[in-house]
């Protein structure tokens, strides 16, 4: 799965969990750019990503996510090589 495919997975999760089909994430997107992406929904999004991709984030990783690009970078490291 390449970065574009990961981004599409994230778009699907964010649209579903935040109930907004107009969400279009980029690597530079931060919580301030997405309505409804707050500290509560952040954890719900993270857990949904973990379940969808069958990976686990550490607490440190979650705390250090500054934008979507950071999430993608960690996901890429955790996914098995194709």
């Amino acid at each position, binding site marked *: 799965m390449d970065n574009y495919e990961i981004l599409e997975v994230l778009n699907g999760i964010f649209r579903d969990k935040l109930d907004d089909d107009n969400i279009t994430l980029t690597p530079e997107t931060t919580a301030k750019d997405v309505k409804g992406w*707050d500290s509560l929904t952040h954890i719900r999004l993270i857990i949904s990503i973990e379940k969808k991709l069958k990976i686990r984030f550490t607490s440190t990783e979650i705390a250090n996510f500054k934008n979507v690009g950071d999430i993608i970078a960690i996901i890429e490291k955790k996914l098995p090589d194709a």
Partner: protein
Amino acid sequence: MLKFHHLGCLVDSIDDAVENYKGLFSVDNVSEKIYISTQGVYVCFVEIGDNTYIELVEPVGKDSIVLSFKKNGETYYHAGYLVQDIDKTIVQLLEKQYKLLNVFHSEAFGMKRCAFLYSPDLLLIELIEE
């Protein structure tokens, strides 16, 4: 061990909700409204059984942490549990893949320590240290 204490219910107005509950439970079973500064909410406890409560939660202002739950209307959104040692319990839950949201001192429990965590199934729980 977790000991069940309350179900948190998000409401538009505690005053209106309390009126509804007064018809079902004794007025003596309804607490005063308490402001929780760290959460940006007013809460009120309605005792529905022995040491078992509904916690009515009313968001205050635009920055309340619980506003994201509001889009689906009034709803039960968390379960509260009493624990003897909150630090130890948090560690146990993290080992079970729970995610820690925050730890805070709650005005609703005499400034005792509380914590919110999400289960792997996206159920929100609150721990209250006895």
